[in-house]
């Protein structure tokens, strides 16, 4: 198996997919870069480095640099998908779902159901998200919570290079719109990646740690923080199950419930604010379906209910970190 980081895994998967399937196209702002400049096309290769080399291989008809027009980007992806293509559309920052909300929420999410199951809309929207780079309130948000709430959208949060490849391939083989959330701070994370057409089915969680005393369900970047805490507590003889759901819609309820039935304790770690979040959703699931297994009240470790602040001291306080997770785990153990 090759070792690469998440950025490279996504780039390689896009190369392979475009090679294999001529209906796959990529569109977004500066996904090639340099259009209409002296430096020329491909002066950039995507501002995140995930689309490097694609325009050289597949040309500007399939790798489409767009003007700054998010509604038209997602709307065009929707139309291309209805007409039989498999567009991959990039939102440079997930925050820009605020600009193209209608196309995501009222359009692509609805077609298959609303058109009596006859339409397919296999759009993959790549949303680059997450805090930690002092990018402030409009360039840092973890909006998977909003899109998880919309029936008709699948929502994916890869946290390892292997899963980035496997989940992207799965998205490119399905017939439904997939919201593919890529955390900026995880792009450099390295790992082994299976060769070939590696696919990871949606709705199957990854057990990142097995410990048996406390269940930690962590989302996106929070998985690595939860792993850190689990490793630390393991030295004290406290065993944590760390569950990475990988997809928040569909959600692997079984993996979570099975674990909580064993441990009796749940901590959910979520980078987005506390209300109406994936964290509260998972907590409600456990309260409803594993109530009698619980030995302590479920804990949610989330960002505060504020926009994301700029100053480093404030942003550090905003993003949930290992100390808050550890404290929550201990509260579940000390309860009663």
């Amino acid at each position, binding site marked *: 198996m090759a070792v690469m980081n998440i950025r490279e895994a996504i780039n390689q998967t896009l190369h392979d997919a475009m090679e294999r399937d001529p209906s796959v196209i990529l569109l977004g*702002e*500066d996904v090639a*870069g*340099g*259009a*209409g*400049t*002296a*430096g*020329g096309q491909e*002066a*950039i290769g995507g*501002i995140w480095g995930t689309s490097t080399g694609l325009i050289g291989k597949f040309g500007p008809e399939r790798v489409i*640099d767009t*003007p*700054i*027009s*998010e*509604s*038209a980007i997602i709307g065009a992806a929707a139309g291309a998908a209805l007409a039989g293509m498999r567009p991959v559309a990039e939102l440079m920052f997930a*925050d*820009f779902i*605020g*600009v193209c909300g209608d196309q995501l929420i009222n359009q692509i999410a609805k077609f298959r159901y609303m058109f009596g199951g006859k339409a397919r809309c296999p759009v993959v929207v790549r949303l680059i998200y997450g805090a930690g*780079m*002092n*990018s*402030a*309130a*409009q*360039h840092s948000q973890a909006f998977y919570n909003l899109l998880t709430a919309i029936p008709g959208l699948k929502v994916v949060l890869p946290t390892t290079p292997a899963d980035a490849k496997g989940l992207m391939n799965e998205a490119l083989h399905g017939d439904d719109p997939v919201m593919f959330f890529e955390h900026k701070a995880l792009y450099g994370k390295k790992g082994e990646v299976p060769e070939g057409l590696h696919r990871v089915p949606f709705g199957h969680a990854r057990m990142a740690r097995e410990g048996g005393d406390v269940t930690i369900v962590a989302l996106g970047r929070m998985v690595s923080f939860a792993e850190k805490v689990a490793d630390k507590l393991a030295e004290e003889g406290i065993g944590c199950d760390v569950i990475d759901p990988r997809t928040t819609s569909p959600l692997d309820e079984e993996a979570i419930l099975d674990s909580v039935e064993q441990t009796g304790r749940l901590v959910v770690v979520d980078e987005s604010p*506390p*209300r109406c979040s994936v964290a509260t959703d998972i907590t409600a699931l456990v309260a409803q379906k594993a109530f009698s297994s619980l030995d302590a009240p479920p804990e949610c470790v989330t960002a*505060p*209910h*504020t*926009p994301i*602040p*700029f*100053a*480093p*001291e*404030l942003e*550090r*306080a*905003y993003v949930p970190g290992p100390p808050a997770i550890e404290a929550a785990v201990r509260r579940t153990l000390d309860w009663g």
Partner: protein
Amino acid sequence: MQYSQDGLLRAYRRMATIRQFEERLHEEIAKGEIPGFTHLYAGQEAAAVGVCEHLDNDDMIVSTHRGHGHCIAKGCDVKAMMKEIYGRRDGLCKGRGGSMHIADTSIGMLGANGIVGAGAPQAVGAAIAARAEGKGKVAIAFSGDGACNQGTTFEAMNMAAVISVPAIFVFENNHYSEHTGDKYAVATDRDIASRAKAFGMEVWRANGCDFYDTFETMAELLDHVRGSGKPAAIELDTERFYGHFEGDPQRYRAKGEVDRLREERDALKIFRAHEATDEMLDLAQLDAIDEEVTALIDAAVDEAREAEKCDPSQIEEDVYAAY
């Protein structure tokens, strides 16, 4: 056009302040002192100042991600801006916004904005408020050649024309949106003003590296808007001297492009050349301003560095509810 000495000195001071503010930031960012992404305005000084010198505190502007120049031209406190960019507690926005989100509504600066294209509709609303007040005030949206392609900008222009309010759309065409050229992204043959015209507005064009041209053209535009209460637009041909953001390798530029721009299109050089042949100002006066501005920026950076950092226990201030 009649200029006063005081007016010209003030305009030069503002342009020099923007330039030195940005050049100093360029150095400090390279040292790793400043968090986040910063988009520098150097090169576009004549645009912000040529527009804002016509305004007072009751006129309103909405700005962009490249907002430092608009802020300074509108009269924001330079030291408080610097503290904001350093993320300090007594920065202009308490360190919560940073470079991309500087605002001071008390002087009609309604906010820099991280969302490209978000400002133009807000200027329409501000113009509704200006109309309601009935004092002949205006609201101005600064937008780039990238922002002009956003649907929100089109909607704002059409709505301003339909409801007839004193909104002014200032398009600063610096020929790039991030790494993409206006030649590619602006379908109307790089011509943005003609779009505004298509919505039934009067439009103007000016050299956005030349204070006098921008200022005089804006004077005509403002006469029209203040007289008619109708919206208008202006396209300013201007340049950015640095990367899209600090750290941008700028591979899209032609060889020697920035050197040429700094030679031929430098707003401060153009201003000085103008004054060298004009009787209004003595170049020594401009030199003296440069020195005063340097002292101001030095002090701003020193104070920002020393300033108290933000207090994490205050993170939940200014939201309506906490959980």
